[in-house]
């Protein structure tokens, strides 16, 4: 198996996640790996990115010298405008999110389990930084896609039978995309749909606490 740098892993995840996009999709990209997805939008596809602080049509980072203190994304980074963008208040932004108008929400995770439960906001005993908009996003977006490294830095599984950490949302995750595999959350459990070319189904299962269902041979994940 190839040993990838963290940066390569993150790019691999983002590249695969971008294949979930479709023309005309309204999406929210979380902080971290999800932010990278914007770099891999397939050609011929136009998506509209929402920033939950109050913008649709978020563009790339501004050119040097064109930064505007009044124009940031939810990660507080300076961004630019795309034609057709618009602004709205936090209340209107979360009405949009909660009301199911965002097609796809990509988020990172500390843990995901086979019921689609998600934990990504706090570790008991450690500093609580706050959930920000994550609880609203996972409750409101029509599809929640978790993008994360398959295991922790120490190699411990993050895809579990049941989450140990406090939940961000219950039964909210629909798809998990990692540096090793694409996993779909179904009523029957976690279905292994794709694996990367440089690994095996057995390795993916060994890096996963939850049992993976394989109703059909997994496809090769595009990397």
């Amino acid at each position, binding site marked *: 198996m190839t040993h990838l740098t963290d940066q390569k892993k993150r790019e691999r995840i983002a590249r695969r996640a971008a294949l979930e996009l479709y023309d005309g999709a309204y999406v929210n990209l979380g902080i971290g790996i999800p932010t990278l997805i914007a770099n891999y939008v397939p050609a011929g596809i136009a998506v509209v990115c929402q*920033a*939950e*602080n*109050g*913008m649709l049509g978020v563009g*790339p*980072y*501004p*050119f*040097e*010298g*064109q*930064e*505007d*203190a*009044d*124009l*940031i*994304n939810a*990660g*507080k*980074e*300076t*961004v630019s405008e795309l034609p057709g963008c618009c*602004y*709205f*208040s*936090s*209340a209107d*932004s*979360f*009405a949009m*999110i*909660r009301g199911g108008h965002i097609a796809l929400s990509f988020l990172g995770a500390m843990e995901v389990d086979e019921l689609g*439960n998600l934990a990504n906001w*706090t570790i008991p005993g450690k*500093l*609580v*930084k*706050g*959930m*920000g*908009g*994550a*609880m*609203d996003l996972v*409750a*409101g977006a029509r599809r929640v896609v978790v993008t994360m490294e398959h295991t922790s830095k120490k190699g411990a599984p993050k895809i579990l039978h049941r989450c140990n950490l*406090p*939940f*961000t*949302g*219950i039964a909210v995750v629909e798809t998990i995309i990692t540096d090793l595999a694409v996993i779909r959350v179904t009523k029957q459990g976690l279905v292994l749909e794709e694996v990367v070319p440089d690994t095996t189904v057995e390795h993916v299962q060994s890096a996963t606490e939850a049992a993976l269902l394989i109703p059909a041979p997994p496809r090769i994940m595009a990397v």
Partner: protein
Amino acid sequence: MNKTVTSAAAAVADIPNGATIMFGGFGICGIPENLIAALVARRVTGIHTIGNDMGIDGFGLGLMLEAGMIASHTGSYVGDNKLLESLLVSRSFTINLIPQGTLAERIRAAGAGIPAFYTPAGAGTQIAEGKEIREFNGRPYLLEHALHADFAFVKAWRGDRMGNLVYRKTARNFNPVMATAARVTIAEVEELVEPGVLDPDAIHTPGIYVHRIIQGERYEKRIERRTVRKVPA
């Protein structure tokens, strides 16, 4: 009708110790710089702050935190202020964390005369503890209550002396909704104009919500995370 107050100091002169105050802004974008500075200069204490976050060390609500003026904070995120982190670790500070959308909607409810509403955010999580849970169409929702304040400090781009406000880009964020939810709303603007100058179709906060308005001075408008692309050669 003229709601103009001559200075930030005058606009905040009657705020008592122990007041509950909402602060517009997301990070340090769209924050009421002048009003915060004037309140810090007064050294009122025991303030209960409501705002998405507490900005950064040395700017925004961070200044009030450093001055020891804050008794508690209600918001959705605290991660970008190191002093706040250490206060929380030492348990010398009370914080009430709320999902960002629930925070926004509770504030909107206060302004809109809705005492309570149901939301799916946080159902099944720690946030649900002690709250009424109710199913609609087979899905659990939490009952959340309106969140009011004594004062709201908001920052707009332009405003007129009747209190009509227009925000600019993502500096809008929590400002319009907070303007509706306080007994006294104080607005600061980069440009104060005469009534009739602002396009009536493009006013974000109708003047009815604003009780005092000041022309802000010397805006710093700091940037928290300057991310840029190289200009192509």
